[in-house]
């Protein structure tokens, strides 16, 4: 099997479909045509840029530059997590909790995969590191954003219940335990569902890409499985870290619920 290279004409045909979608949105008055066009343009620019950057990095194989790109990806993901919260933490904690949790989970799981599982030589070979990290960041980002959003929203709405428990002498951790569990569960549901239906309902994106690019389907399936497991572990780890950090920040040293730390 070989790779059929895509020409500009091929891509413009596909882009025509998005234009059609935007036209539909305008005719049906869905009001999302602007957002469709902006998002489509963003993805075009971002992916082409990434293609360029990766080509340069693949040639350079320089660890510092790969590090810079990885940090940039992390910061954007951290920003995205913050932007998706209805009630976010004030100050540096707003971006800090999500970013730190993603750093802990995505980076450690990626390192584990590179060093122990795939055993790439050298370990920072960008062809493996960047896609793996990207997949992990993208997916843990979802889990962490959902978990944190649930945590802060439930704390906000459940103030009376939390304070009732504090007033009866519970410490902060007992007072927020249920909300913490609930938030974690909701963050894990998407990846658990994705694992359960993978290959039956949907052909996962990465596997599809590999097959299109000419890999034998069995190899593609194995890589997809590896990625799914890594993502599940990363999402779990990241959500736990985010919920622990977030719930600690909701209380002060006198076990007071500090909703003033949210906005």
């Amino acid at each position, binding site marked *: 099997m070989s790779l059929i290279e895509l020409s500009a004409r091929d891509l413009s045909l596909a882009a025509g479909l998005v234009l059609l979608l935007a036209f539909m949105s305008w005719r049906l008055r869905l009001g999302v045509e602007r957002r469709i066009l902006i998002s489509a343009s963003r993805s075009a620019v971002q992916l082409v840029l990434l293609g360029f950057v990766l080509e340069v990095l693949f040639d350079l194989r320089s660890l510092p530059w790969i590090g810079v790109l990885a940090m940039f990806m992390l910061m954007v993901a951290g920003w995205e997590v913050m932007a998706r919260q209805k009630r976010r933490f004030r100050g540096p904690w707003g971006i800090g909790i999500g970013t730190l949790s993603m750093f802990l989970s995505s980076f450690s799981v990626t390192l584990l995969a590179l060093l122990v599982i795939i055993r790439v030589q050298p370990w920072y070979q960008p062809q493996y590191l960047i896609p793996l990290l990207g997949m992990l960041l993208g997916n843990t980002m979802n889990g962490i954003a959902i978990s944190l959003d649930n945590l802060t929203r439930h704390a906000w709405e459940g103030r009376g219940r939390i304070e*009732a428990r*504090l*007033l*009866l*002498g519970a410490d902060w951790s007992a007072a927020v335990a249920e909300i913490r569990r609930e938030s974690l569960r909701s963050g894990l549901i998407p990846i658990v569902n994705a694992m359960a239906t993978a290959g039956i309902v949907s052909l996962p994106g990465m596997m599809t890409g590999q097959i299109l690019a000419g890999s034998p389907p069995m190899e593609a399936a194995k890589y997809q499985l590896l990625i799914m497991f890594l993502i599940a572990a990363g999402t779990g780890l990241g959500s736990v870290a985010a919920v622990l950090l977030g719930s600690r920040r909701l209380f002060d040293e006198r076990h007071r619920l500090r909703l003033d730390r949210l906005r």
Partner: protein
Amino acid sequence: MAALRLEGIRPKVLEPVDLELAAGELVFLSGPSGSGKSLLLRALADLDPHEGEVWIDGRPRSAMPAPEWRRRVGLLPSESHWWEERVGDHFSRPTHWADEEGRESTRMLDRLGFGPEVLEWSVSRLSTGERQRLAFARLLGNGPEALLLDEATANLDPRNRERVEGLVQDYLRDRSAAVIWVSHDPEQRERLGARRLIIRDRRLEPEP
């Protein structure tokens, strides 16, 4: 024996409050809505950040962990909240009804007009007044040495109001507890014959 002393307690909307309650003393607190009565009680229970210090029996609040403080100085908020399905799951000791504590709890529920079967009830079937009385029982189950009551009888019919008043009076006599009671009911403040304070222009002063 538990006297309560406040020094420079300053919730957001009030001038600093100094106050001393002897062990077994009841003080009524009144004032217009929004004047800061509930905020003062919340500050005493250490629920909101604020300046000032409180002592119970000569021991400063800052010297003990907040959960311990809140068990000793129990606040009953004007609105009760519940987090489990069953009433009984909200009581600190899942009451073994045979031992002394269990008998004590049964007596208390009885005095508030409930049989022991109330612990099996679902919270969702409780009326507002039942919730208020059960929240009081839940608090007394902790055996607090001082009580902060925020409109503890506001939703009660006369008979249940008398039950709660009687229980508070006995509790403060038997346990020598200091009690601060926010009440909008002038007759109640008159009837129980205690020291009366009012918040006026952000200040706490004796009610004329």
